[in-house]
């Protein structure tokens, strides 16, 4: 699969939030303000890309060679957990404001399905290293795009007259549903 195809597929056609349902918890939690949405998106992109590279090498170099494929889930998640700790330290040093804004959502990147999902999908789709890297970048850009788009809408919704029962998460989910319909339109692209 060519790089361009991978990028278009992951950002638009099979967008990780609107089509694949990965990363919903942070999507709902962080997408209400555009600033935090962008910050989270960037952090996730970094973690996903790095972890995809690490897990690729571990799968090819260790798990496959030793016939230990059944340890994939547990090894991958441990690598991701370690990476997130590392990213947390880096962000804390480089931008304390972002660190405070992201709050509890930063360690939660560990449980962000996108990170583990992309790592597993890289192996399942049989990508080589370059395709893996671009799949990682594309998926996280798609995730960030979803977050930013949703935060734009949600910031406006804060000021609208939403029925009491639907306020908060229900309306956010319905919003996501409508955006998902829009993204379905990309289906014939590749």
């Amino acid at each position, binding site marked *: 699969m060519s790089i361009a195809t991978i990028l278009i597929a992951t950002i638009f056609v099979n967008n990780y939030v609107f089509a694949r349902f990965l990363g919903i918890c942070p999507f709902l939690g962080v997408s209400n303000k555009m600033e935090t949405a962008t910050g989270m998106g960037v952090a996730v992109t970094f973690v996903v890309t790095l972890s995809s590279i690490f897990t690729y090498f571990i799968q090819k170099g260790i798990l496959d060679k030793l016939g230990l494929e059944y340890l994939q889930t547990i090894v991958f998640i441990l690598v991701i957990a370690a990476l997130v700790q590392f990213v947390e330290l880096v962000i804390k040093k480089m931008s304390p404001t972002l660190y405070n804004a992201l709050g509890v959502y930063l360690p939660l990147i560990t449980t962000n399905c996108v990170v583990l999902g992309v790592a597993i999908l890289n192996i*399942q789709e049989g990508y080589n290293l370059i395709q893996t890297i671009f799949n990682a970048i594309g998926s996280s850009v798609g995730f960030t795009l979803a977050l930013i788009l949703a935060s734009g809408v949600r910031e406006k919704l804060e000021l609208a007259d939403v029925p009491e029962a639907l306020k908060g998460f229900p309306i956010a989910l319905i919003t996501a549903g409508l955006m998902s319909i829009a993204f379905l339109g990309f289906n014939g692209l590749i």
Partner: protein
Amino acid sequence: MRETLKLGIILFIFTVVSAGVLAMSNNATKGKIAELEMAGSLGALQEIFGEDAKFQPLDEGKQNEIIEANPSVVEIFVALDGDSASGYAIKNVSKGFGGDLVLMTGFNLDGTVSGMRVLEHSETPGLGARSEEPEFTNRFIGKSVSEEITVEALSGATSTTNGVLAGVNAAREIFNSQLSN
């Protein structure tokens, strides 16, 4: 420093115990899993060629040669009528919408498709998952191998249909180039 060491050792013990438990589960289940795969293949072969047909795997040397050149091929079977070959079946892997598709395509010696079965898939129920149903798989029967095989798509499941077609045509090419003599 001592504390870090102690923490590290405790984590290490956790990991070792976990790895041990997983190795045991793996041993307990892998026999059954292999059995299921074999039964799945056999079932599909009998559906495609008829209950009385007999099969054997293609000669190992030839099979390995084909698999090396076409890594998506899993296994090739020869359908037997008495002692001579009456057809071939190719089991290969293709990309679906929700994951890998494992297909078994049967070819008659006269150059037509005898049948196709979807052995494994992760497609959406009600949409791509309907590729398992006879309504879809029957569309492949009788197709000629002399040109690219196309069938009417499953409504709402174009990606799944395309994945199946890619797999079937890959099998067709292997049949044409390697087996139809």
